[in-house]
């Protein structure tokens, strides 16, 4: 079945586009809230990351997968994923360099006050970056076969 035969999945709708345009900033803010405020309320990096990733899916739902794919910079996605792992590992290994155990946050107290709280926030942020980018990545990878992309010769190899 070629791309032309398929019934179009994407329907351009003013209502959906307007709604997503209004709602998306709030969803992204809520994702960051869940990520940062996870220290004091339910939530954390894993949950916030998934909500942040779902913003991209909302945009793809409203504006089409292909235009969203072009809009999202692949370097940002890759940087978020690997940067999150590196950030977490760096915070953990840094305390070993300072002469303590893995992730012994209070050793950073000599550089910054409330080091434990900030360390946990940074770790949550790193986790959020990993989860959000992997969710976005899986979405784009699975969506890649849909429509005309399936006919490109690279996909057949």
């Amino acid at each position, binding site marked *: *079945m070629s791309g032309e035969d398929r019934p179009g999945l994407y329907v351009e709708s003013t209502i959906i586009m307007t709604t997503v345009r209004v709602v998306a900033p709030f969803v992204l803010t809520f994702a960051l809230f869940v990520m940062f405020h996870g220290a004091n309320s339910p939530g954390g990096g894993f949950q916030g990351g*998934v909500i942040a990733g779902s913003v991209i899916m909302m945009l793809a739902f409203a504006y089409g997968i292909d235009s969203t794919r072009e809009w999202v910079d692949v370097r940002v996605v890759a940087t978020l994923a690997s940067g999150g792992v590196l950030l977490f590992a760096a915070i953990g290994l840094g305390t070993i360099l300072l002469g303590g155990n893995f992730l012994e946050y209070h050793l950073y107290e000599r550089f910054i006050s409330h080091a434990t709280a900030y360390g946990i926030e940074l770790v949550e942020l790193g986790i959020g970056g990993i989860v959000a980018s*992997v969710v976005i990545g899986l979405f784009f990878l699975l969506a890649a076969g849909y429509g005309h992309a399936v006919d490109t010769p690279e996909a057949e190899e």
Partner: protein
Amino acid sequence: MTLTLIEGALLVFVLGCALGAALLKDVLASVMAFAAYSLGVSIIWVILEAPDVGLTEAAVGAGIMTILFLLALANTVRPQEDQILERVRFRTVAFVGAFVLVMLATVPSLPAIGADGAANPVVSGEVTQYYLANAYEQTEVHNAVTAVLAAYRGFDTLGEAVVVFSAGVAALTVLRQEVFA
């Protein structure tokens, strides 16, 4: 054990959705039943006072998984079926039934919901009490779940984060792509 009306209705709803996801012949209907099941389970997590898990279940189980399943369906051919329900084989029923019996056998040894003190070894256990007593002083975060996740069990969490990262890399490798796009 007493159930409130909401809890009973939720359990019936979740069981119905689970059966629907397993038995419905049409894959799209099965995916929808699975999404509804996840939503029901996430509310049950909140009733069991595990809002962190409930949030994850709602976002991942009901949200992301459904979208990924639907995308996979859109990429495959869905055969038109006349039957509504899957044919059930006796062997499958016997196997699943035996598994359910084994799981149900562990239920009586779980503490009652909200039980406190000696009646609930999970809450009164030494480790739980240590976390509850010292989490704020030692980690400066109010949510004890986050304290355990990011501080006391931080090394395990690094492993989890790397597992998520590896899942993304594995998906790239399997699909022979170099970038997430």
